[in-house]
């Protein structure tokens, strides 16, 4: 049984664009809107080097990661061949112009995946 929670209006997401949804724990979720107003949600983390997919260019049913241009399928999170990898996807629906995500998934899914780090703090970790 899904516990849908409203995130934003469909129109709050630009067409061929996305918004980031911050979670209490874990990497944010990226919500994408296609040219024909389909909405998809993926973990905001490219399977390649963790790039924020929410910042990528959306085309067709794909998003191009802004870091190294991997193409990730919006529906299933799979990287387009010959690249290999998959980013977790999140259940998502639009009702009465409102975008909803599943509360349980938001609270529990893919919490083990960390965001990439950069700068002096990265050295400290290494």
């Amino acid at each position, binding site marked *: 049984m899904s516990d849908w*929670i*409203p*995130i*934003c209006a469909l129109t*709050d997401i*630009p*067409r*061929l*664009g996305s*918004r*980031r*949804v*911050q*979670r*209490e724990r874990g990497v*944010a*979720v990226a*919500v994408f809107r296609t*040219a*024909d107003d389909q909405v998809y949600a993926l973990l905001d983390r490219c399977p390649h*080097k*963790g*790039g*924020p997919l929410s*910042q*990528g*260019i*959306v*085309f*067709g049913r*794909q998003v*191009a990661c*802004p*870091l190294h*241009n991997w*193409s990730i399928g919006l529906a299933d999170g799979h990287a387009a061949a*010959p690249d290999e990898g998959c980013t977790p996807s999140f259940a998502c629906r639009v009702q009465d112009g409102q975008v909803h*995500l599943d*509360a349980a998934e*938001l609270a529990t899914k893919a919490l083990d995946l960390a*965001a*990439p*780090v*950069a*700068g*002096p*703090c*990265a050295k400290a970790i290494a």
Partner: protein
Amino acid sequence: MKKMKLVVVGNGMAGMRAVEELLKIAPELYDITVFGAEPHPNYNRILLSPVLAGEQTLDEIVLNPLGWYAEHGITLHVGKTVVGVNRRERFVIADDGTRAEYDRLLLATGSTPFMPPLPGRELQGVIAYRDIQDTNAMIDAAARYRHAVVIGGGLLGLEAANGLMRRGMDVQVVHLMPWLMERQLDRVAGGLLQQSLEARGLKFLIGADTQGFVGDAAGRVCAVQFKDGREVPADLVVMAIGIRPNTALAENIGLHCQRGIVVSDTLQTMTDPRIYAVGECAAHRGIAYGLVAPLFEQGKVCATHLAQFGIGRYTGSQTSTKLKVTGIDLFSAGNFAGGDDCEEIVMSDPYGGVYKKLVIQGDKLVGACLYGDTVDGSWYFKLLREGRAIGDIRDKLMFGESNIGDAGHQGNTRAAAMADSDEVCGCNGVSKGTICKAIKDKGLFTLDEVRKHTKASASCGSCTGLVEQLLMFSAGGDYSKPPTKKAMCGCTDASHQDARDAIRAEHLLSIDSVYAHLGWRTPNGCASCRPAINYYLLSTWPKEAKDDPQSRFINERSHANIQKDGSYSVIPRMWGGETTADELRRIANAVDKYKIPTVKVTGGQRIDLLGVKKEDLPAVWQDIGMPSGHAYAKALRTVKTCVGSEWCRFGTQDSTQMGKDLERALWRMYAPHKVKLAVSGCPRNCAEAGIKDVGVIGVDSGWEIHVGGNGGIKTEVAVFLVKVKTPAEVLEYSGAFLQLYREEGWYLERTVHYIARVGLDHVKKRILDDAAGRRALWQQLQFSLDGEPDPWFEFDKAQVDLRQFNPLQAAAAVDA
């Protein structure tokens, strides 16, 4: 709907490539039946030589294993030769009686070796070199016999000879013509090749005319006789003097044949439009090609036609040659022999084993013959195919594209000499061994395929020449795609120039209208073509076309530079590299307030704040209160300056002021790629103007303007454009040049590559010879830039979507 039936006669590289292309675009259209005379699935015939030489195995050269046919529902008949076609009732019949009906028939019967009618040619041990059976016969003979004679010192003959020698045989190559590979090499290169092969142990009989073969009591060949009376021992004779298109079947069924099965630009036979022919058996405009690249090109066109797309025509190919003898670098293309109306540039170093000849006709490169150093082969081949005027690079032509500043692959120019562990691609850390393995294991043929699978040369591209060499070695012969026109991306067949032309000619103002007009295959393009089209619209129709932020890379949407952790960097503009205590204080305060982890001075005389959270960007801009530096954009970046005459005891001109004036005149200028300028106040050139897109150098009597420099991937020194007297002229000439680049450059093409493509002469004609045109360009640039917003402060006007800086809150949504 009932599927149509396609029958393919010939299970070789040309036929199967056409089928593969067809399956890609119309997988459901046909029931496909394939007949192959050989008892094998489709294999890479080009790689028989490495198999013979013991460098690869037969299994390794299979292109389409049996499972592939099954997977695609293809009925495969191996070991069956089609002997008849009933064109009225439309079926083919094989030698074992197998029948197959067709709606479309594709003939890909390849070629047969030419066997001259010499006495004794029926003896055992006299063979051709064409297929797996021949190769196995040679391998077998090498194990049992000693003396081999190869007749024919062309590409195939030499590869056969090399292979037999590697397998321990004593090999003599008989060649009637005065030097080896006379159809691909000139006399000097042919001589060098002979020397190098002799050093490896091959023996040559040049100019020897074969009379016949002598057999022993058992009916096996034992010697070769020549017309001058000489006789050499031979337990194996390999005939490699040429191939003939295999048109036997086609002629039997009444198709028009003349040096091959005559086909049209759609690869349909002249006689029967239901019947197609591709590959070595087909004669297109009088030429039957024997190399891979043309065959693949034909396959592609044939497939689009079979798929009933009705697009695409084959218009012939330029070909180049490469010998697959490990350790020998040899390349030739076009008219390498020259002629009366040709000029030649020759570089000859017999001791170093390097010989290069470039043949120029008029103002164009028409032929190249390289021996010993072939890294620039693909570049010459490109120049040759594109037919670009080379007048402006003539003095540098011989030294090649790769002669300066290659970084990241240890200065290597000869792939053959590299160890498997040596790094080829310094960007993505790809070694020679990895690339070769991918080429073999995955059956890659083109540079694009290698880039996709290994990432080698996919980033900065400076190792492209090396990767192409590896492709030649590992995949054999010719892989390069002949068209001079390259499609922008997989979404379209249109080239960048096609898109630019259509936008201007048709006055197109939106991305959708471009896609509709040029028949894009995808609804909203991809991350590669959409930013390009967006740029072309804005640069062609300023103030008319509307910017589409969603078609820009993230940096140009968020007006900051994305970093590996998803944070951003902020570089405020410092006009001419000058700053003030007040500006520095504001920057320092912002660094403290927003806890910005790294502050770095850039190479462009500015300050980079790294690790800014996206949420903080607008506030950081506001607090710093300096204009956007556009360090994130395909736009004017910096104008680097030296101190100049205001302070410097050597300075002859006020370079700092000149730099500030240029920067104020040009900032907010989007371009095909990033644009960097520099102004030095004297020829000591402390601002390093020689490696900038526009470099201005003050001299006592005025200013020199240099263009097309680049300090990046491959260091490129800017070329001198003009010397002018006044700062106003510097602005006009620089601005006009940049506007020309903005209007004609392809997206992501730096000025150096733009100039290389159109030629410096073209630039000079537009900027120097045509004063009115120059002023018009400069005015058009000023018109374009007039009123352009600063995206850090004029959000509405710059269409900055502020929502992106505020993440949505899942938790907050729950509370609400």
